[in-house]
């Protein structure tokens, strides 16, 4: 039986008290609770503090470039659909550098879990405004205040992700349940995770988030399969911030529509050059 100890990685280089620890713990718990063993999982990450997470646990790991965890995760997932593929990004990685991949991966609905550590700031480069910094956020690169942020939840719904959720690294139990739901979900699952940066974001702090978050599933009558209601919910930010599964749709995944995968993983298929003979004959 797999245990949390089986998911012990190398020591972390994160700041003490970093919101990333909550995410790391939730990931480990989710995998253990789903009885997934480390060799059955592929953790793909980008660059930034979030990008280091795969090293701090166990699994197959592909630590890619800044903004690029999603494309290799897609490629690996198609080559071997038996892997549980989880991609990790920060807000800069996912919504800035990787913006185009983000939109199109959701549109195609790849079977993939995408965890975005959203601390609303560039932390590894020591505190500049990110794509999700609140409007007016003052940093060294935005002395007059940051421009309005992207709305990852709304973007996810519009672009076509079939599961769009928000988590809070300060509520590990709740986040674990979201990660489990995402891993078992067929299709693209986005979790934007509110993650306080103790070093460079002194506005959106642990207590700032804690005072505002509430669970959508506890709100009477909220139906996460209602796209219009979900879009309204996605607009909510400020005094109250919804967490939980904001939107869920039943859409075919990109992978299940690929005839080549019906014969099994691409990786396991035998290579027989002679099979190309009939293609040569077509050209005679």
């Amino acid at each position, binding site marked *: 039986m797999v245990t949390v100890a089986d998911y012990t990685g190398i020591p972390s280089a994160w700041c003490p008290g970093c919101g990333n620890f909550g995410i790391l713990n939730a990931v480990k718990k989710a995998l253990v609770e789903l009885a997934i063993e480390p060799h059955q999982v592929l953790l793909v990450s980008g660059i930034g503090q979030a990008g280091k997470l*795969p090293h701090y646990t166990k699994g197959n790991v592909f*630590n890619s470039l800044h903004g690029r965890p999603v*494309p290799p995760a897609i490629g*690996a997932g*198609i080559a*071997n659909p038996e892997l549980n593929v989880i991609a990790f990004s920060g807000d800069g990685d996912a919504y800035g550098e990787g913006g185009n991949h983000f939109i199109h991966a959701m549109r195609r609905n790849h079977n993939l879990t995408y965890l975005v550590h959203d601390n609303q700031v560039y932390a590894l480069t020591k505190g500049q405004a990110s794509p999700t910094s609140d409007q007016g956020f003052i940093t060294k690169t935005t002395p007059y205040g940051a421009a309005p942020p992207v709305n990852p939840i709304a973007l996810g719904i519009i672009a076509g992700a079939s599961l769009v959720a928000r988590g809070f690294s300060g509520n590990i139990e709740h986040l674990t349940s979201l990660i489990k739901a995402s891993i078992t979900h067929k299709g693209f699952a986005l979790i934007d995770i509110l993650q306080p940066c103790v070093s460079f974001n002194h506005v959106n702090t642990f207590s700032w988030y804690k005072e505002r978050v509430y669970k959508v599933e506890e709100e009477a009558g909220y139906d996460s399969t209602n796209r219009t209601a979900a879009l309204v919910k996605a607009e909510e930010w400020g005094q109250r911030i919804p967490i939980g599964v904001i939107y869920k749709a039943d859409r075919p995944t990109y992978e299940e529509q690929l*005839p080549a995968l019906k014969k099994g993983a*691409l*990786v396991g298929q035998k290579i027989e050059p002679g099979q190309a003979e009939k293609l040569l004959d077509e050209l005679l």
Partner: protein
Amino acid sequence: MALQINVMVGGEAGQGVQSIGFILAKSLARGGYHIFADQDYESRIRGGHNFYRVRAADSPISAIADAIDILVALNIETISLHQKELDPKGVIIFDIEKVKDAAGLKNAFGVPLDRLATESAGDKLMANTVALGAALGLVRYDLEIIGQVLVEFFKNAEVAEKNIKATRAGYEYVRDNFKGSFDSRLSPISKTKRMLLNGNEAMALGAIAAGCKFMAAYPMTPVTSIMEYLAAKADEFGLVVVPAEDEIAAINMTIGAGYAGARAMTATSGSGFCLMVEGLGLAAITETPIVVVEGQRPGPAIGLPTRTEQGDLQFVLYAHQGDFPRAVLAPNTIEDCFWLTVKAFNLADKYQTPVIVMTDHVLATSYTTVDKFDLSKVTIDRGLLLSASEPNDAEYKRYKITPSGISPRAFPGQGKALVVADSDEHDEAGHLIEDAETRTQMMDKRMRKLTGLSKEVATPEVYGPKQADTLLIGWGSTCGAIREATDILNKHGASVSCLSLNELWPFPAEAVSNILNNAKRSFVIENNATGQLARLIRTETGIKVSGNILKYDGRPFTPDSIAQAVRKEAR
């Protein structure tokens, strides 16, 4: 060669220039002729000026020729643009009813193309097929063969039948009415069946034969049809083609599939490759095998999108920051496109590093006749893999330091061995490090792979006499024309040999030095503005060639134009 003919079909985009050009080439190939056919088109869907050239001969040819024997003008502009290329004995076929004053046209034979199309097939749109028939009527080619090709080309029996009627109408009109002095006659010369294919098809076939299971790409001239070909065969051959949102995604998806253990490739042109450069280094540091086809066209930026150039060599050799091993192959012929694509997959797997296959517009889109590839000669070498008894090794180290620099590869999910890959510098287990010692060890390990890779490069061969005064050097698509130019020059008393390079990195420095030291004079012939191969030769061998013959107008060299330029330089 005893017999050869050059036909050019010209017209607007949308007039069916490419269709009848291809049917003409295929019909002649079926009669045992060797073919080289290319197309010249503009970056537009309708209108403009396009042409398709078909050169047929009774012996192998590998380039287009200058003088046109038959010019099929589907519009009047074709006449004014290409009249000067007509051989003195050549003939222009045009629509007599579209020209008010045809008397002034020299060497021209008017055929009522539109009218015959309407009369024979009930469709004016088949004027192009009437023109095809007219051209073939002029040389009295076998109508039955053309009919067979039309049936195969159009698939739909009714459409094919109409086209056969239109072809026959053009054929018979010329046979019965042409009274000029055109004496070339073409009849089938053998029943030998050869494939007629272009470079993109050859590369796609090479990929399929080599067991490529994954391709991600963004369409880009001149290599889009590689992606289209593979997509069309995807179900049958168990491969996946992902149309990526951009070239960055394309190469990174390819890397992901390669990491997971599938043979994977992408294809793009110069400016798409600019976007892929970031991913190239990722493949190198994570030691992930990938194959990248780089199809050159004139740059910088958008340049001339539908034309040809060899301007990316220095870029491809050095693209990305930092040092890492790579292999760069540059097929010389369409046959080479197949075999070097197969080799690229083997090298990528064996050395766990990116391999780039360079092509260009001419090679990608020109058609030639090739003997059927012998698939029994295709070898598959997946390189050093973790043995079947070890997949559960809990201590597996993806980047184990070895004398060859190659670490045994495991695939994620294959067993309990965890495959940890990192774009940061890393230790043997794949975890990121910062220390100087490990960094140096890892860089040395990766760079050691070049030693093995260097031994994989085939020794380049010299074409022509062993001892010659002048050595012509080329790479990629220009080699066909250079070889023919060598023959032309030698036939006229010169002493010329030629060196065709198709594996450029690691550079076969010793072999090239020996060949160059043996020549009195050497000229590098390239489709670029600065002599990029000449620079590579100088960097790697210390030898400065006598001169560069360069062309960067977006058009390919012809054998005659090279011969002329060599004579001028050698004076």
